[in-house]
């Protein structure tokens, strides 16, 4: 399959990239790991774009810690996250998600920024970041720097508030080393599976009472979503079987999944409760 009808630009710095993106406007399409763009080109879902290849921009790679904040450069690959002791320690939910992300080949190419920009409701990199209450840092010539809370970032399947000319430079969140984490994905096979439903959970305890919990769900709504009602219900509660049972019913009312060729809405809704129970048990374990 050829890649005809595309222009290709490979800027060498972030500044140059922003200039190119600004000039390309609506036609600009950022490519890094290409794990989403190339299948889309093959399927003719995109055409006539200017492909702006940022894959070699070193300044967008790497993981940094400043005080309590972890910042991940947008070009950091899923494999790099998985190999990072910092991520394993400070963002357990993200590290667990990276372990079940696609397969090793895709993990070596796919970037965290690309996973966010693609705006899939099922994105396995995004769900844990949502549970981490992450902020997406973007930059453009027109608007300068913007820090967008991840839960305000997505507007629908494949859609986000990212504007033409804007580049995701990094994503940042607070350390969660003092908290418990769990990420569970449900797919139809053990590797290279698009999530039918996924859950990321970060829980802070005060003794045996839940002090703070954030729960993110994937593939259960038009965008990855927080289960706010369930979080509210759980806050301040002492965990027991009855609380878990009630919360696992409540969380099913917070989702709005689709029926598609992979699974029905009913099954995805059913999975929501199961995933919740397993995630909280894993977090407590």
């Amino acid at each position, binding site marked *: *399959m*050829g890649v*005809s009808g595309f222009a290709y630009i490979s800027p060498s710095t972030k500044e140059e990239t922003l200039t190119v993106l600004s000039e390309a406007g609506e036609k600009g399409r950022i490519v890094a790991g290409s794990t989403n763009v190339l*299948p889309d080109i*093959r*399927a003719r879902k995109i055409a006539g774009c200017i492909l702006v290849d940022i894959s070699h921009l070193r300044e967008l790679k790497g993981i940094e810690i400043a005080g309590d904040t972890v910042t991940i450069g947008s070009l950091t690959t899923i494999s790099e996250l998985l190999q990072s002791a910092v991520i394993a320690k400070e963002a357990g939910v993200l590290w667990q998600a990276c372990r079940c992300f696609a*397969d090793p080949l895709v993990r070596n190419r796919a970037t965290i920024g690309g996973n966010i920009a693609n705006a899939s409701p099922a994105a396995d990199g995004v769900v844990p970041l949502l549970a981490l209450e992450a902020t997406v840092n973007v930059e453009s010539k027109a608007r300068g720097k913007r820090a967008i809370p991840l839960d305000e970032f997505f507007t629908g399947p494949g859609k986000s508030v990212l504007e033409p000319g804007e580049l995701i430079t990094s994503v940042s969140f607070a350390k969660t080393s003092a908290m418990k984490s769990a990420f569970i994905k*449900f797919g*139809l*096979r*053990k*590797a*290279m*599976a*698009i999530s039918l439903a996924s859950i990321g959970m970060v829980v802070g305890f005060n003794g045996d009472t839940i002090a703070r919990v954030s729960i993110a769900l994937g593939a259960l709504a038009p965008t990855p979503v927080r289960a706010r009602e369930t979080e509210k219900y759980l806050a301040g509660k002492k965990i027991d079987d009855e609380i878990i049972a009630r919360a696992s019913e409540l969380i099913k009312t917070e989702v709005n999944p689709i029926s598609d*060729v*992979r*699974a*029905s809405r*009913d*099954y995805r809704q*059913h*999975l929501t409760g*199961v995933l919740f129970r397993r995630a909280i048990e894993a977090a407590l374990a």
Partner: protein
Amino acid sequence: MELNVIGKGLPKVDAWAKVKGKTVYADDFSLPGMLYAKVLRSKYPAARILSIDTSRAKQLPGVHAVLTAKDVPNNNLRAKFGQSTDVGAQFEGLYRVLAEEKVRFLGEPVALVAAESLQIAEEALDLIEVTYEPLPGVFDPVEALKPGAYPVGENESNVVSRFKIRKGDIDAGFAAADVIVENTYHVPFVDHAYLEPESGVAWLDEDGVINIRVSTQVIEHFRTVAEVLGLPQNRVRVIGTWLGGGFGGKEDITVESFLALLVWKTGRPVKLTYTREESLLAHSKRHPFLMKYKTGATKDGRIIALEAELIADAGAYTYLTPWVLLYATVNAAGPYDIPNVKVDSVAVLTNNPFTSANRGFGAIQPNVAYESQVDELARVLGMDPLTIRQKNCLRQGASLATGFTFDRYVALPEVAEKAWQALGPAKESQDKRIRIGRGLAIGMMSYGRLTFLHDSSRSYVKLELDGSAVIRCGVPDLGGGQAQALCQIVAEELGIPIEKIKIYISDTALTPLAGTTTATRQLYMSGNATLKAAREIKERLLTKASTMLNVRKAYLKIENEKIVSLVEPGNFVSLKDVIAQCSSEGIELFCEAQFNAPFTDIPASELITGQTHPDFTFGAYAVEVAVDLETGVVEVQKVVACYDVGKALNVLNVEGQLEGGAIYCLGYALMEELVVDQGRLKTPSFSEYLIPTAADVPDVETILVESGSGLGPYGAKGVGEPACNSIAPAILNAIRDAVGVRITSLPATPEKIVFAMQKKQ
């Protein structure tokens, strides 16, 4: 007989080149000045073609040819689908190169383009203007059978074939039964999903012969290609490549006619390789079957009546549907000795993707049904899965419902027991959300083609003066070790190391035609032809050595490149010296031999009786699964395959076939389904069409029974296709055992299992 090469586990002759990336697969090959072809495909599953305007496409710079049906000398053939002998009218069908008048399925080829680059060819496709009038179409074979249904073709009925089998008195059988189990089963469209999509390069040589270098299981399609072009058959040469998998998907013509037409039109070499998406959309699929089963048994577990009604979706064109349906019909009652049997089968055209050969070829669909039925009967009767099978399965001297009698060893009781026992002691899950279950299934599948096809194979063996050997045999090697087996036979018979044998395969101009690599036939057919040729040469060598050594021929053996006296091992002559002597005396050191399979008559009516296949391979699968009660996820934890392979010529290769067969239909059982909705494919890529990954595959334990009772060389049976039989029902039976629900439609997805469990509660 002592064997030196046969029966060992040897690496394949083709293995290193493949591992190192040196094998030149179909798409790896290019020629100077080569053009690139693309196929324009129908956007509708059913529509009338009102007009095709190719003028804009032809004007695009770099485009050398744009062809439609009117450019094809013979666009509609009454085809025998690669078979060279007469098959009978009911086994022929329309082979249409490019769509004309009506399109019958979405993805049907409508026009061809050859251009200087793939990009230009793709652009040219966009410039071809086809005006369609969409037609209603029919997508459900049951609907397509009804009077007044939408006609998929022009003049022909939607019914492709009907067969039936009658044995005993079915009504009396059910009347005498103490328990009756009735279920309807459904198996879906699935794809072969080979690593290598359909591909080839063709060119016109200096003698005016069209050469087609292609990934195919059937080089004999050169005859069909010649007919399409209106050329003499000796003007088309097919050179088969090492295949990146076939599984029946390269049994029908894929790119050959398109390449030949474009080469003929342009005079330039042309390459055509389907994308994965094209392969999924537009090439053949496994037949979906709707299977209504009623099985009756007495209290003591004797199965006395079986009634089956099979409806197969043939998709939009005939292809090998009648043959597949015949296999399904013969296999419908399974490997059981049942006194009263009634089978009715029908295959129906629809506006779905066309269906044809796929590993298992009609045998594995009813296997899912009859082995589920036997399991349910066992449950009703309180019998264990092994006992009910051993009590009812075929044995030597018993007959199929067609009347065909097994005069050779039937290993079913043995393979069933060995597979089942190999699972070891049962254990409970430590996790309360997981239930462990076990399932057993047995099966039979033929090796060798339908006997009325009068199958034959030829092979040529030659000794060189330095003691090395050459084999020429038109056998396509799918990766299944077809070429390797022939080398081992020659090495064994002529006493030379396998490294000294060079095999040339799969070339209609240079290798004797060996027939198709389909129907699990090559070891049986070409193995026997090669054995015959090698033994003829061996006979000549021994005769000559006998005079040279002054030892009677019966007291000579040939091994390690020597001919040695059995009584006096110090008395020997080197093979090289015997060859030199033969050569100087004009004794032929080559032989081309032909092996013929048993011949029967073409079935005279829908009623199938007597022998239809040369022989069968018997096998059993036992599996253990862990089912998640909350999610319905099935983890296959153990798989045991036990097969009577007759004789394992190469143990490593046979084990590989069994492991591959297990995985092939593990996917069939649990995840694979081409979802086709109103003729439109909803699983157009490997993102939606799921096959098992390495992470999903359990260890497969293989147990080889070597009864020596096969019709192949050294008593071997064929195992390629039989290997994928029985694992799917074994998994379904294990799920039933684990969580108490019977899944009757494949694939057994987590969702189906969870909702079946909820419904049961």
